[in-house]
């Protein structure tokens, strides 16, 4: 009976998720007046790319959450796994003529292997030291691409052609959810990227949900909370930790692979890889560590907040225009600090706390 309830629960969960996305999109597109000024013009084609971006950042953040949230291993090098995924897809398509779809799982699997390779030495270090080791990964990765990737114009950039990131022929068989109201703006390429990201996001959510409720999930948490106690009850410490690394790298790889559909390129720079790594960690913490939905919500908050702040001309116009943009990352940082102050346990954690206190208050008079 409980099984049935559970299955029904998660089916409802992700149907609700897809519906919420669709609803959000509809609201944005149809009530332009309401949202004008709050968000970038919703009828713009780039808004759907923003959704896709939030989704793939969310996928990577959910993966990172398994490692950092559930297993307590801090990684500030996941931008590198993300990059490996992007390069894997881009190279397979550009140099080897693959179609996009088969490169998606391959990119994930390559990252899985890299994750195992990184996870084994990471067994020996913890906490801040592990953070430093993974930071090293983020720093070394761009150099490796410079050395080994022979990309566009002699750089380590691989720029893809539109036909390489276009939807497959069977995509036309599906009804057009998004393009109908927006025919002038949204091309099938944007929609294809969006719906594919939704599909992968749903699969990720289901996987993480199962992991969090499985024996393996309890082992992850046990190792995080008390390593030696976990070992005494039979948890294979090393295997759990390495698996956590591998799984989180796998999702980062999928996310990186999806990113080439939006960005049309694979690229790695020291600053960008590091910033992405931090962004993923921020999404996890903002959404709520060790929660299934938190990192995805966190990713949406982070991506849209960043876009919103970038578009605030009224704020930045107060400053000298050519230098105004210098302020937007700082404003974003300040917003995050405030958010963490108000919701120290993230959005999901905060919501749970709110619900709990609500039900307690409601319960109180009855007790009295």
């Amino acid at each position: 009976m409980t099984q049935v309830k559970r299955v029904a629960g998660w089916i409802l969960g992700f149907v609700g998720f897809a519906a919420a996305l669709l609803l959000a999109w509809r609201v944005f597109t149809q009530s332009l007046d309401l949202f004008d000024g709050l968000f970038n013009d919703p009828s713009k084609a780039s808004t759907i790319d923003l959704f896709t971006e939030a989704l793939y950042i969310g996928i990577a953040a959910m993966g990172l959450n398994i490692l950092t949230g559930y297993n307590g291993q801090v990684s500030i090098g996941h931008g590198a796994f993300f990059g490996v995924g992007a390069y894997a897809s881009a190279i397979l398509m550009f140099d080897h003529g693959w179609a996009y779809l088969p490169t998606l799982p391959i990119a994930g699997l390559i990252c899985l292997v890299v994750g195992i390779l990184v996870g084994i030495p990471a067994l020996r270090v913890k906490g801040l030291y592990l953070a430093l080791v993974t930071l090293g990964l983020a720093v070394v990765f761009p150099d490796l691409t410079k050395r080994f990737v022979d990309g566009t114009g002699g750089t380590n950039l691989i720029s893809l052609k539109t036909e390489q990131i276009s939807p497959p022929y069977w995509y036309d068989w599906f009804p057009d959810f998004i393009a109908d109201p927006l025919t002038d703006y949204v091309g099938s390429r944007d929609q294809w990227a969006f719906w594919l990201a939704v599909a992968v996001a749903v699969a990720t959510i289901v996987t993480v949900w199962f992991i969090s409720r499985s024996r393996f999930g309890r082992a992850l948490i046990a190792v995080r909370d008390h390593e030696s106690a976990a070992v005494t009850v039979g948890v294979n410490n090393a295997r759990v930790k390495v698996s956590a690394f591998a799984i989180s790298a796998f999702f980062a790889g999928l996310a990186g692979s999806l990113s080439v559909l939006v960005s049309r390129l694979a690229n790695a720079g020291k600053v960008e890889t590091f910033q992405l790594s931090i962004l993923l960690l921020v999404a996890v913490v903002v959404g709520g560590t060790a929660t299934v939905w938190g990192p995805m919500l966190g990713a949406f908050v982070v991506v849209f907040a960043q876009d919103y702040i970038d578009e605030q001309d009224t704020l930045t116009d107060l400053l000298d225009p050519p230098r105004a943009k210098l302020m937007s990352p700082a404003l974003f940082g300040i917003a995050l600090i405030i958010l963490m102050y108000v919701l120290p346990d993230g959005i999901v954690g905060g919501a749970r706390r709110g619900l709990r206190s609500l039900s307690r208050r409601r319960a109180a008079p009855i007790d009295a």
Partner: protein
Amino acid sequence: MRNLGANRLRPLVLVFVLALVFAACGDGRNDDEESSGDDDDTEQTTDDTVDDGEEPAEGSDLIDATDCPGDPTTGVADGTIKLGTSLPQSGLYASFAEILRGSQAYFSYVNEELGGVTVNGEQYQIELVAEDDAYDAEQTVGNVTGLVNDDQVFGLFNVVGTKNNLAVREFVNENCAPSLFAATGAPAWGNHEYPWVLGTFLVPYPLEMQALVDYLNETTPDASIAILAANDDFGAAYVETLESLVEGTGLTIAATETYDTATGEVASQITTLAATDADVFLLGATLTACPTVLNELAGSGWDPIVYMSGTCTSKTLMGLAGQNGDGVISVAPLLDPADPANASNEAMTLYNEKVAQYQPEAAADNGIVAYGWSAAAMLVYTLENSPELTRESVMETARSLTDVSDVGLMLPGATWSVGADDWFLGEQFNLVQYSAADGFFSAVGDLKVYDDQTEEVTPESLVNG
């Protein structure tokens, strides 16, 4: 199941967020002057009379617009032509935003004092939508996609950065949006698969090497050359070209070292190169690596002839080298606004006056502002010489620019042309030498003329790679 992990993570995340904030703010320091960019761009010197001219444009079949999507007059409406640009306005390379000030000053001048740009008898105001990409190619793609699809710009102007332009050239090509004067001296803009992108008038990096080799053949024909170059495509453009150019001459390459652009560590490389005691030192570096290398060099006891990338010739960077920059040789396609000898020049007078009027915060004596001004002048020149205001027509005009002279702060007597096969503009320039006492570069010898030679001197892989 509760969030035990969160407690432990909280301080760590706070630290990261603070680090991000500092990283974001930390670069405001050098945005005043300065120039140069990684693989791209930078200022240079300049001068001269006012703009405008004669030539170009006939409707040859340079551009095939048959498969182009969209309206050929996209971005033109109500007497306004809307253009877009993407360049770093935040992040490590925020100093490039100064280019924008120079360009905006010129556009304001044209819009307000000349009534706009005149194309085919009609006047249009110029509107420039400027997006920030923090020098990150991925953000450039997002910006350019938005500019073309959402903002519906006519075309792009002065997108900064080699990688950034490489990342969008496919998109630009497919959408037939002219991308004019891409701010980078990389040889990749000669690739004929991408006719909708035209590079700027910065001296193409390989041509700098040709100028150096010619100079050495004249002065010290048996010189040995030691090279220090960035470990990326920018450095490779110098090294590979020079290697192919010294073949068959009396010149030899004594040693080649590279440095990591991310760390900028150069001390051990300088020691190694100094040990060769070569006659000439080629510095294929950019940004702060330039003054760092010059300062290291001064302490090494080695005293070669130093040639430095044209991307390093900024006032700020040379200021960091101080006395150690004395005598360094480089190239400059424009008049140097810092040189008082140019102050009486008519074009320079106009430049100084209008920048002070429309962009009072800009440092007019900074070459990078002069670069932005001149690029804007080139754009206006191109538009005015187009037979009609369509994307195809403007691109064809740009592709057939011939003997352009006295536009912006061009050197007196210099003419620039886009060859039929050689798609590079900045092929006439000065070889210049820095005087630490004076604080500016002055020309060495006459104007260097290398018309239609860039393609020839550049290894093919650099152009079409």
